[in-house]
């Protein structure tokens, strides 16, 4: 579904991604692990088109590096940005409506669906997103991304700032979404233990390079990698 090869990206003179390759298959949950500054968020932004990038990113036959962010969304790639990126001055409802920005039909149907998946959001439908708790905002960010009916969901550090129990719940939700709809998920995470539990495959990113890859089970078992890159 997603084939990334030789992906590069820089902030000014500083090259953050040194040319990375990875793939996400249909219906797969793939996690990219790495420490702070490894280039995880940059990878997400390079795919979603919110920063200049080089190399190729093939999504279902489309070359994403040539497209603008809104065109990429229209192809079915949605993102849960780092720090959730909910629109704090908009109500929960309006946040979801912005999520459906690229669509015009059956929006109400989807709203109902996500309100029933996340009843907390339905309760707070008319509240400003800024007044929600961290966990609720993360749910909102995911629901909002789902409103575009993505084929691929990019999740950037959803566990950031959340209590472990909430993170577990969140990951359970992501797994459910993946299993129900067959939507592929690309997750970047610092929290290797939790992420590897839900992922099918994983890559380890270090200073802009992929230094290891394998199935989640393999990486979980590999103590050298665990010690060297994942700080476990």
């Amino acid at each position: 579904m997603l084939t990334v090869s030789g992906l590069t990206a820089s902030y000014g003179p500083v090259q953050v991604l040194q040319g990375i390759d990875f793939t996400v298959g249909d219906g797969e949950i793939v996690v990219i692990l790495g420490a702070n500054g490894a280039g995880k968020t940059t990878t997400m932004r390079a795919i979603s088109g919110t920063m200049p990038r080089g190399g190729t990113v093939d999504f279902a036959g489309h070359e994403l590096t040539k497209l603008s962010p809104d065109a990429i969304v229209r192809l079915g790639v949605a993102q849960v940005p780092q720090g959730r990126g909910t629109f704090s001055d908009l109500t929960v409802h309006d946040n979801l409506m912005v999520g459906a920005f690229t669509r015009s039909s059956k929006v109400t149907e989807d709203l109902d669906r996500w309100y029933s998946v996340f009843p907390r959001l339905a309760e707070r439908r008319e509240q400003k997103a800024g007044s929600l708790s961290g966990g609720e905002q993360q749910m909102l960010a995911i629901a909002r991304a789902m409103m575009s009916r993505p084929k691929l969901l990019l999740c950037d550090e959803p566990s950031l700032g959340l209590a472990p129990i909430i993170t577990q719940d969140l990951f359970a939700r992501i797994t459910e979404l993946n299993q129900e709809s067959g939507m592929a998920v690309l997750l970047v995470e610092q929290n290797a233990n939790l992420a590897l539990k839900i992922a099918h495959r994983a890559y380890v990113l270090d200073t802009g390079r992929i230094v290891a890859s394998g199935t989640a089970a393999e990486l979980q078992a590999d103590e050298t990698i665990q010690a060297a890159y994942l700080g476990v």
Partner: protein
Amino acid sequence: MAWPKDVRRGSAWHRVGQLVLFGLVALFFIRAGLTWNRSGIGQLTDMLLFATAAVGLNLLVGVTGQISLGHSAFFGLGAYTSAVLVGQYGWTPGWTFPVSIVLCFAVGMVVGLPALRLKGVYLALVSIALATTFTQLLNWDRLAWLTGGPIGIKGLSYLPPSWTPFDGRADLGKWFFWMSLVVFVICTLIASSMIRSRFGRSMVAVRDNETAAAVMGVNLAAVKTLVFGLSAAMAGIAGSIFAMKLTLVEPVVQFFTLFGSIFLLVMVVLGGAGSTWGPLVGAFIFVYVRDWASGVGEGNGVLGLFEGTRIGGLGGIVFGVLLIVIVFVAPFGAVGLLRKARAKVVRVLPRPPALPTVANAQEPQPPTTVVSG
């Protein structure tokens, strides 16, 4: 029940409250239009024109979060478009208004292009350059055949057409007042319905988190350039009427210079950036504070604080201080303060949570955003 009383948004009581508020404001303007003398009406007309330009700027700054200190250029462009067409080519003033709107919209879209790449301070700097370049252009020899150069264009007039209920020169003040009121109301309706629309949500989304908006599929370029254009068009139509009312245009008219940009921004912030009533309240405060500062009579200067010294830029100081106070004491402007005061009496609660099944049966409610009343 003890105070404050709770009122649910969208309930009958809430609607009644909104209607009463709207009715009082409407009554004020209608009464003023019918009974005030020419001086009062003239000032109120200026206020409405500034408010109209501020409505546009509010869409850009308050709702979409793009700073512009260049709106004097659009106000001036509208004024000059009408002045040139009337003064040099003998058009009927009314027909120049649509030209102003279209021209300012187009120029606004083009000027919005830098906003695609620049943010915050940098965008503000570019917009300042726009304001200063505009006055330079007005002064430019090579364009003097069109703009009148430093002398400008004088002797404009727009007498009420015969189909109006106004009686020639004697009703000039009323004619401009009602015209400005209608234009202001139209612009406000456009702005508020826009804010409540799908496009309006994407404007707030761009303000709140540009990157997130982009990855939701919001086309940043389209939103920014369109809002710039619309905002410029509103400033332009206000400028057109302003020129006709003033009977002249020239490069030193304050609202065509950087001062005008600053004052419009002051109105937006004073009133409450992002709120529907903000521009009106901000323009009201601006015009009447300015008037108060100019009525020096016996003593010199506001409250006699500056008695005898007559330092320059007193108006600027007054507005500067007001602005600092507002931003730190009442970040949501005068409208925010009024809301706070109202909250002591009536608390507006959000709509009740809609059950999925109920929501399913109907179209989505008009969303209630930060910018709505």
